[in-house]
């Protein structure tokens, strides 16, 4: 399904990029939105920016389609959810139990998956102007009651799948809204950057899912500020609350539960064969960097830090085998692109430094 070209106020179309950037920084909410929209979609500007940064021009299949979505108008939303019940078997897809617009079912797993899919879609639409996982309104499918006492949730490349937990170690895996955000974001990452699910690129992949899972949760809580947010992933998942409050903490990696081994600094990076090279462990490092950037910038993290990370994710220079430092560099560069002359760039750079990911002095080309 092709995306319709975005409508922009005609005045903004004739303004030169530097004026648009000023408006993007200092205008009213509506003006800023229109200016950002124009800047991002304008092919001349993209070309100029690419030349300035000595990077290849993004192809039409990436920037143009995604950034031409209508801003905030409901007729462009293409939220199409379907939740399936796997009846405690591992056979997919299971049978459909709730489709888009259908009322609540009183099955917690079904309704939580449904709401989580919706919240994730709404977050991406409002805060990042992204129309579902593929930016073309891909239907969002969730599959619950997967397996018997299945202690996991995963993304199979096309859909989200949730177990009920065994009730001893874990509760059902739809219990925290960030889990749905986390799983769907794997789809976004695969669509954009294809970060290889191994070692550092895999830990980045994991971190990006934790980042946007958290931003979805904070969005759902009324766009909580970074200071007020708890930065916990999987709150309520432990069947025994004495074990811990959550599965991971972005604010304080290693503190979420008794036995949490996430590092918060490169000096504690875990080299292991397990877990695809510790992708769920070493994600603590970039998670902490995002937390520091978000709290350093202030306000709801989905307003500035989220878009900075998103721009880095979609940056043509981000390779599937990216290391932490390569991704960090792109967040710094994109902080400068999105907020030229602002404090964000330095805040982002220092956030990475604090977790031991140190960029060379000149981190962007002349």
């Amino acid at each position, binding site marked *: 399904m092709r995306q319709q070209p975005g409508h922009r106020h005609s005045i903004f179309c004739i303004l030169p990029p530097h004026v648009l950037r000023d408006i993007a920084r200092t205008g009213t909410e509506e003006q800023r939105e229109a200016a950002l929209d124009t800047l991002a979609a304008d092919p001349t500007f993209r070309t100029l920016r690419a030349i300035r940064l000595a990077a290849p021009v993004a192809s039409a299949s990436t920037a143009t389609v995604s950034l031409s979505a209508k801003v905030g108008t409901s007729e462009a939303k293409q939220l199409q959810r379907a939740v399936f019940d796997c009846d405690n078997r591992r056979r997919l897809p299971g049978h459909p139990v709730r489709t888009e617009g259908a009322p609540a079912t009183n099955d917690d797993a079904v309704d939580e998956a449904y709401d989580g899919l919706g919240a994730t879609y709404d977050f991406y639409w409002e805060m990042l102007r992204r129309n579902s996982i593929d930016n073309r309104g891909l239907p969002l499918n969730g599959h619950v009651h997967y397996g018997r*006492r299945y*202690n996991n949730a995963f993304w*199979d*490349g096309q859909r989200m799948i949730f177990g009920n937990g065994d009730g001893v170690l874990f509760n059902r895996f739809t219990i925290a809204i960030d889990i749905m955000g986390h799983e769907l974001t794997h789809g976004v990452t695969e669509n954009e950057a294809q970060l290889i*699910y191994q070692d550092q690129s895999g830990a980045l992949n994991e971190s990006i899912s934790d980042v946007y899972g958290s931003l979805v949760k904070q969005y759902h809580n009324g766009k909580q500020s970074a200071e007020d947010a708890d930065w916990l992933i999987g709150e309520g998942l432990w069947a025994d609350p004495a074990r811990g409050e959550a*599965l991971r903490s972005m604010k304080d990696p290693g503190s979420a539960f008794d036995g949490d081994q996430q590092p918060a600094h490169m000096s504690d990076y875990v080299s292991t064969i397990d877990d695809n090279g510790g992708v769920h462990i070493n994600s603590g490092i970039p998670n902490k960097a995002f937390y520091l950037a978000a709290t350093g910038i202030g306000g709801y993290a989905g307003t500035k830090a989220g878009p900075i990370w998103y721009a880095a994710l979609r940056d043509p220079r981000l390779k599937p085998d990216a290391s932490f430092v390569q991704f960090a560099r792109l967040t710094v560069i994109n902080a400068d692109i999105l907020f030229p002359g602002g404090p964000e760039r330095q805040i982002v750079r220092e956030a990475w430094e604090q977790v031991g990911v140190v960029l060379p002095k000149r981190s962007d080309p002349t």
Partner: protein
Amino acid sequence: MRVQFKMDGGFAYLPDRVAPVTIDTDELPEEEASELERLIEAAGFFDLPETSAAPRGAADYLRYTISVASPEQSHTVHFTDPIEDPDLQALVEFLEDKTR
């Protein structure tokens, strides 16, 4: 027959629980030992490929490693969620239950 079972990775990956668990059919009640042997047979275990890759773009899947050693033969397989074959599903669920 000695069966070793390991689960790795997953959204709620716990490094403490990653050590493989070994089951010796000689130490199981007779019914369970027969059941396990039947499940291994039904899954065509000794003909399964040694490794199978996760689906493209997949994440947070569990990775399973099963080793079976009998006097006649031994074999180890590594595979991930989603498990497509119902017989392999049944074997995994049996092993999960025994090693919880």
